[in-house]
């Protein structure tokens, strides 16, 4: 107890003064500004895009939509075509695996110069490699594929490289964070004994973060299967290329089969990874 206080200050008033509800809009209300800004953005967007609702919602469009969907059935299940689809699916899976592996190797190679290994580490290339990783990451796979078609030619090779470039950016950044957050003790011990930067990374840092790197890579692989399925739309191989080809020729029965294969593949991979993760976390 530190002395008496004037009773009027500490004790609440016997009756709370009647308070008005807060005004609907006040200059200090962040949520109001936030909502206003978003509403303005949405209204401006609707207003500035010449959306053809009339064309889309007209009876004519609905009818053509119906016809379009009806053409999907029955899906083409002739053996020759199914064989083609299976080859395409295998190609897509191969693209995703190889692209992810290349990305993991490349990402690791970039992540080591991009991370500060200990407090006194100057890491002279940190800024530059981080910038490269950001550039690799912010260009989507599909744009990479379109760019790489020029030097790698049509086909799955361009798609694989495109996946590898974008994913290397994503994984490199995650890897660098993981390496910087690794416990410093083992690395410090090696450094005290005079081990060089490369040896410290190889024998102290990497063994500690390897499980984390693996799980990041697996997660990206899952993403890359979806991406690989559609990369072919610009001509980079796999199921997407088949899809774009047959849709361009208006062969809707074949398109339906390809779409079915795509959905099945993604669903299977999802189920598999879900089961794996459940098995790993238990």
């Amino acid at each position: 107890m530190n002395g008496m206080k004037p009773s009027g200050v500490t004790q609440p008033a016997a009756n709370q003064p009647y308070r008005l509800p807060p005004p609907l809009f006040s200059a200090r209300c962040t949520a109001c500004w936030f909502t206003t800004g978003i509403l303005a953005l949405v209204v401006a967007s609707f207003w500035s895009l010449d959306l053809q609702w009339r064309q889309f919602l007209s009876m004519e469009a609905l009818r053509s939509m119906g016809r379009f969907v009806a053409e999907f059935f029955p899906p083409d299940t002739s053996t020759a075509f199914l064989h083609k689809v299976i080859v395409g699916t295998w190609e897509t899976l191969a693209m995703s695996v190889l692209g992810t592996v290349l990305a993991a190797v490349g990402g690791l190679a970039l992540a080591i110069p991009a991370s500060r290994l200990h407090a006194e580490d100057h890491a002279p290339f940190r800024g530059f490699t981080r910038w490269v990783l950001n550039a690799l990451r912010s260009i989507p796979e599909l744009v990479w594929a379109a760019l790489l078609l020029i030097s790698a030619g049509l086909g799955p090779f361009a798609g694989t490289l495109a996946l590898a470039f974008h994913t290397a950016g994503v994984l490199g950044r995650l890897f660098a964070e993981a390496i910087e957050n690794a416990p410093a003790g083992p690395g410090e011990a090696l450094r005290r004994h005079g081990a060089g930067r490369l040896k410290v990374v190889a024998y102290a840092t990497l063994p500690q973060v390897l499980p984390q790197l693996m799980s990041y890579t697996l997660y990206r692989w899952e993403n890359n299967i979806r991406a690989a399925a559609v990369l072919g739309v610009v001509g980079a191989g796999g199921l997407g290329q088949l899809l774009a080809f047959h849709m361009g020729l208006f062969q809707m029965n074949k398109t339906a089969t390809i779409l079915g294969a795509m959905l099945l593949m993604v669903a299977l991979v999802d189920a598999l990874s879900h089961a794996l993760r459940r098995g790993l976390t238990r």
Partner: protein
Amino acid sequence: MRTAEGVQAVPQRDPAWLGRVAWILTAVVLLWPLGVATEFKPWVLFERDNLKVTAQFLGTFLPLAHSGEFLEMVARETWRTVAMATVGVALALVLAIPLSLISTRVLSVSALSGRMALLASLVRTGARWLLIVLRSIPELVWALVFVRVVGLGPTAGVLAIALTYGGMLGKVYGEILESGEAQPTQALLRNGSSRLQAFFYGLLPTNAGELTSYTVYRWECAIRSSVVLGFVGAGGLGQQLDNSMKMFNGGEVATMLLVFVVLVALADSTSAWLRKALA
């Protein structure tokens, strides 16, 4: 105490090198068929003809295209890209909010007294399946379909984003609503409030921050994918980029890539800032 004899001689060779080499060899052997399937021939990149084409294309990157007319076009298309993403997400909300309200188990009245009624559970499962189907078709495929129906232009892109993102948002909204604390909502329901009342006064206040921040994050993703959708003819920056690439106009490609990278970085930081402000 440390003495000179106590310190062991440091091995000069990695003691586990045999195992490492074996693992790398196994990986290469396993990856070989994949390389065959993807026609993985890196040396193709360094063939004389290819190198010449690549060098020519890269050589035209500089100087960047910067004529007033072109920059005006890029600015217009950039805005269209952002607008497509915004309209797409707005329409996705129209789809996602009702579906997630229908599919949420927390808002079930019959589940309060033990098991959910058969009809209610059927409707909820149906809504969930609809969300899964919407989500699992990639937006690029939706865009290809809609380009056939409504023709080239932003409508196809907007619809593609609306459907895919509607599925994603609906699913995640449902998960967020169910992961939070259910007691306030159940108390309201038990005391006779309607389901919408229980949502607005019980469920929404506890989860509003998380729901908004996920929506903002998805808007950021939508900006990225609306550029990609342009490549199949859905308008915006992507379509112009595709055109310039087909014309081998390196300067224009370089400018647009730069604008795109800046746009993504801006959306990234805006969304990070908004999510931090909301948290």
